């Protein structure tokens, strides 16, 4: 069950925005609404976010990302559509009921940190708890713990202005963590930071997410950041969500020209993983079998390589047509394993980490799942196709 769901959300700025929703549903364009003084910022957005997921919303500036994320916690009331958190319809809530949801379920990290300059780092981190009415000693203890989690232990007495940008954003993150909500909204949280620090913060976020099992909605205009962080990515354009999918799905199967153009400059080697490009092994052979059976399989099915597995499907290695033919000629009884060491890669290894390995080998790489069982294989040609900018089918055609 999703923790968070958006159903046909619309946000239109301007006077009497409701008429804009009708017009859009009847096929009016954005420009037509603009002419009437309405700004459709979010148009018919629907998505679901599962517990523990990092859901990234990606799009150019002005595409409606900030508006969308602010509808999730009701900072912008939806013009139409619903936001559902757990079983609660947020769109129906107002005033104190809405504030309770914000205190208990959702916290937020802002692009420009939005810290209180006249309060210490510790007081800033404790802000959400103070709003909740928690006692001073309790909230200080919890804020200290949150600051420690983000690597700011001992900075509690400083003022935000004394910290660098990256550190200030850690305070923003600590403030959100201290509130101990399940959902974390992050609006371009790392966009104002230097690339190096940004990278560090991304790693830290993934780490924290795994430790604390937060559900995160992360907004960015940086595709590489989206690909690095997102379990799934929603591609936004002009207020609409064009495509939702994993990084691989968006790279390999863009739903529109717009998305395809967007992703063409991505460093695919860093984004694509072994699991995304591997081929399923249609035939395998048991390690106890002999060259005759292998030869037969290879010949009958025109295989380029045949993985050899144990009874539990953990790989032993690969046999290749030429070597099998030689073994049959020589009358050997054991399989001539090309990859005796059977060095394998896991599903989530980025292609960048496979390149060196692949270059040294003559046989395909073996991919294993998290129990060590054979999940697929990657012949060199597959690897190269995946790294080229064109979706695989196009190249093979």
């Amino acid at each position: 069950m999703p923790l968070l769901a958006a159903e046909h959300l619309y946000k239109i700025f301007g006077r009497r925005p409701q008429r804009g929703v009708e017009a859009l549903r009847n096929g009016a364009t954005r420009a037509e609404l603009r002419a009437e003084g309405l700004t459709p910022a979010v148009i018919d957005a629907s998505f679901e976010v599962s517990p523990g997921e990092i859901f990234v919303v990606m799009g150019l500036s002005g595409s409606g990302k900030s508006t969308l994320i602010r509808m999730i916690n009701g900072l912008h009331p939806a013009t139409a559509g619903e936001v559902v958190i757990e079983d609660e319809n947020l769109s129906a809530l107002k005033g104190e009921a809405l504030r309770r949801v914000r205190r208990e379920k959702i916290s937020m990290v802002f692009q420009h940190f939005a810290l209180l300059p006249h309060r210490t780092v510790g007081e800033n981190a404790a802000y959400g708890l103070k709003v909740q009415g928690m006692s001073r000693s309790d909230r200080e203890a919890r804020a200290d713990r949150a600051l420690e989690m983000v690597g700011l232990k001992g900075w509690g007495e400083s003022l935000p202005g004394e910290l660098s940008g990256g550190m200030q954003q850690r305070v923003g993150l600590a403030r959100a963590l201290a509130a101990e909500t399940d959902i974390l909204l992050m609006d371009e949280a790392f966009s104002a930071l230097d690339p190096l620090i940004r990278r560090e913060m991304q790693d830290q976020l993934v780490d924290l997410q795994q430790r604390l099992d937060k559900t995160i909605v992360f907004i960015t205009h940086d595709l590489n950041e989206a690909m690095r962080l997102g379990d799934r990515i929603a591609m936004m354009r002009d207020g609409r969500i064009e495509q939702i999918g994993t990084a691989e799905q968006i790279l390999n199967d863009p739903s529109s020209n717009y998305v395809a153009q967007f992703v063409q400059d991505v460093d695919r080697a860093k984004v694509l993983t072994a699991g995304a490009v591997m081929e399923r092994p249609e035939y395998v052979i048991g390690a106890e079998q002999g060259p005759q059976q292998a030869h037969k399989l290879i010949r009958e099915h025109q295989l380029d390589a045949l993985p050899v597995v144990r009874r539990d499907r953990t790989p032993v290695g690969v046999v290749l047509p030429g070597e099998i033919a030689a073994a049959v000629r020589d009358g050997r009884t054991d399989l001539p394993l090309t990859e005796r060491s059977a060095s394998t890669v896991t599903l989530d290894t980025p292609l960048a980490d496979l390149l060196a390995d692949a270059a040294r080998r003559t046989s395909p790489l073996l991919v294993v799942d998290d129990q060590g069982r054979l999940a697929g294989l990657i012949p060199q040609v597959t690897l190269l196709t995946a790294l080229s900018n064109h979706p695989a089918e196009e190249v093979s055609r």
Partner: protein
Amino acid sequence: MSTAEESMLPRVRVGDWIDTAFDWIDDNLNILLTLFRDVMTFVVEGLVDLLMSPPPLVMVALFALVAWLVSSWRLALGTALGFALLISMDIWLPSMQTLALVIVATIVAVALAVPLGVLAARNDAVSAVVRPVLDFMQTMPGFVYLIPAVTFFSIGLVPGIFATIIFALPPGVRLTELGIRQVDAETVEAGQAFGASPWQILRGIQMPLAVPTIMAGVNQVIMLALSMAVIAGFTGADGLGKLVVESIARLNTPLGVEAGIGVVILAIFLDRVTSALGNPGRHAGSLLARLRARRTAAGGPQPTTTSEPASGSSSPSTTETSVRAGT
């Protein structure tokens, strides 16, 4: 034949209507007017007594100390010299009377202006009504306020303070509204996002961040109050203004010049002290700043860990804050 008749336009008797309105107020809100008169008389006279009770030289030292506390030893020195001159020019009592009038009028004006400014900042409709009224109040010549003041309170201190409050009010409202409206939108959103109520946001975020702007407004209120307090001499309110009026009536140049210098000395003192209060950060040499620095240096653990290069740690973020404040 009047000009109105010549131009075939009806003579619109705005002045008469207002006069009727004043009469109505005078007749029907008498209790309020009496209350205002009694409270103001009591407070201002009490304050004058208080300011006059220590020997003048002790008061001079106290004023200098205040200047040192919030600003610098230089202002303290200037204050000591200036206030000593007030004694030497033999205008100590009228100076303290004017000061008391300015202080009380400022407090009342600010107490009215800040809530009004907050309302205007939170509500566009209120703002749309308040703004032209303030424009009107600010462009109306100060003397005009003396007329209803005298209608309501006859002559003396009270009409003076009434006119002073009305005259000094507008910048307080304006700058409170401005200060709150220009608080960084994202910071206000942060308050909302963590579930703070509008009141919590006002108290914990908007007001503190608006303080420098509001203090700039208070500073202007004080300056206007001082200028009006002099004009209030025409209603017979005791103080430097009364000396000025007398000197005009009797063409007494020395008296007029001395009273004028007295006003200037008070003005400089009040201006420097209140603008220092609004920007404590800019007065590192003040006693308060030194005390604060000593306290933070003595206590508090030093930070132990950071995963970032320490270089450029504070300067970039400072510029960033100031850039954001401007948007």
